[in-house]
């Protein structure tokens, strides 16, 4: 059952088996594959048919999971203006924009700034206060766990809305699993108080500077962080018309 998340734990031995996808010529591959984007993990096998006795051939399937990579100028729409203003404003504050903005992604008509975590607070304050940016409304934090993206396992994703200019951008910050710390944005956007508590509760992300980082949904004495990929969903098998239906996280996975 290699496709089950708990088997893709960080700390498992490095995967040095060949990835045939890299060797295949592009013309023989379906449209989605290739070298574009950033590889976050390599998916092997399907239906759990990868250990001895696999005659289906599915066990040999290999797929690279790639998220959209850095975009090049022009970004289109108001994205260029926002990027220019942000870079200009950071430079004015004596910060090299390339140090703060790790990369800029434009995908599906949405703009994402990947920010280095040590500069997050300054970038957020600039985004909120600069008259040409004015992202007054933060819609909170969503965390994502990529256990196989080594060194950047935990992501915090913020969506910022500018009511003045009618714009929406995304700010993404990553932290490694061994040091899951991200500066808190509560001083800039007080609305993030509960949102950061939620991200801490479910992912174990520690927001430095949060006034009271405690669990919010789960009981105070709960062990573990339930929405991380290595935390099992749980559940029990159910009998239905004589057949055993396994728990949802034990069922056959097609991906």
């Amino acid at each position: 059952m290699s496709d089950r998340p708990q088997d893709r734990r960080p700390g498992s031995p490095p995967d040095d088996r060949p990835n045939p996808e890299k060797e295949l010529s592009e013309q023989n591959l379906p449209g989605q594959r290739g070298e574009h984007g950033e590889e976050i993990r390599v998916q092997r096998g399907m239906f759990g048919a990868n250990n001895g006795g696999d005659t289906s051939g599915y066990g040999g399937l290999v797929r690279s999971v790639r998220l959209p990579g850095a975009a090049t100028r022009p970004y289109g729409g108001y994205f260029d203006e926002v990027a220019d203003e942000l870079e200009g404003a950071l430079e004015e504050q004596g910060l090299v924009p390339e140090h703060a903005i790790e990369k800029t992604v434009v995908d599906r008509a949405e703009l994402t700034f990947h920010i280095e975590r040590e500069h997050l607070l300054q970038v957020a304050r600039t985004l909120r206060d600069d008259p040409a940016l004015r992202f007054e409304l933060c819609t909170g934090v969503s965390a994502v766990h990529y256990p196989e993206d080594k060194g950047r396992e935990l992501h915090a994703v913020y969506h910022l809305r500018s009511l003045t200019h009618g714009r929406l951008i995304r700010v993404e910050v990553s932290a490694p699993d061994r040091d899951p710390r991200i500066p808190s944005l509560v001083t800039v956007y007080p609305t993030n108080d509960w949102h950061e508590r939620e991200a801490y509760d479910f992912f174990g992300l520690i927001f430095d500077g949060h006034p009271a980082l405690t669990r919010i949904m789960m009981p105070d004495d709960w062990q573990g962080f339930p929405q991380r990929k290595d935390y099992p969903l749980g559940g029990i098998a159910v009998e239905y018309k004589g057949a055993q239906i396994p728990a949802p996280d034990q069922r056959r996975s097609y991906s």
Partner: protein
Amino acid sequence: MTTSHAHPPASPAATPGAPRETTEGPVYTVTGGDWDEVVQAAAKTDDERIVVNMGPQHPSTHGVLRLILEIDGETVTEARCGIGYLHTGIEKNLEYRTWTQGTTFVTRMDYLTPFFNEAAYCLGVEKLLGIEDQIPDRATVVRVLLMELNRLSSHLVCIATGGMELGATTIMIYGFRDRELVLDLYELITGLRMNHAYIRPGGLAQDLPPGAVDQLREFLRTMKQNLPEYDKLATGNPIFKARMQDIGYLDLAGCMALGATGPVLRSAGLAHDLRKTDPYCGYETYDFEVPTADTCDSYGRFLIRLEEMRQSLRIIEQCIDRLEPGPVMVGDKKIAWPAQLALGPDGLGNSLDHIKKIMGTSMEALIHHFKLVTEGFRVPAGQVYAAVESPKGELGAHIVSDGSTRPYRVHFRDPSFTNLQAMAAMCEGGQVADVIVAVASIDPVMGGVDR
């Protein structure tokens, strides 16, 4: 209800009804009619400061919301929320089901606004798939129609329960009477009164049933008669106004800092409505207005909700006029849900004609059906944020795909969750009795807050 004094008096006791000593002070557990004992005991202590725990199972806390109030006499000096009593792990569960099955979960989050949950989720999935332009017009119009019906039913519950908490039981009866009409329409169109899972990635579960348009027109006629009754009953009512005006005050700066959206933000005078500022589902082509108030209080929010219901009726009327015959599911057969539903003797179920066709005449249709239902479709890797203006504010869905048949991560930015943070700012310094009014004006639904 449990109360505790901040400073312990020096009399530990073990008799029934006597306080239980804790490190925080004596705790009086009150059930039923022995409230008098607490009052007597509280009168004996020299300190007026009392911490009252209200909820999580209190009839006027909108479900399982727990309020922790520190009161000094009748004044609330500090107010905090305890949430999480209705956490159901919907976001985690979504990661173990196909993209289509996701609607079944999200419709249950904020159970008073199911169509908004479904719409935000489906708009996000469609954006990930890149098929926003292929959604049939009829499906989009029906989505708008259902969302506006849902705005009516949600606001009706808000006004009804809010009125009931003030002791205005007539307005409660009126509100639930009219909500029942909306639920009847839901049942006619989707087959269910709640938890519909009717809006699906790619379109709708099925088309409107015969006679739905006539019923909708009938409903509009009834509602146009019923809505003014709320005005007559409440808007000018001196008791109602005295209880609501200047209560739950939150100005624009407070709304922005606390991320409050929806009627709370619009009661501070800013006409921010995603249907106008960041339109989706073709809202820019509908003729309607965004009501605002400049009172920043509960009464302003009540008036805004009332006016929004009138505007929703206008939009529903325009939707009915725009309904053209056509498909309600995207044409791409690799995404469109293959099953057909039909009304059988025991209710809505799989269409026997469709089953006969796929089982008897088309092997390919059967394979397709099987693959799509068991395995689902794949969604290209990436992330999107899709937001809709729910009756409570900005409902956003942050959806991440890793290219598989299941969502990699779905996070909902529920407006109730965010707006509830404003409770402390609205209540501190006010009267205990006004806490209920302030919380009711936020209109939190714990299913959405806790997810």
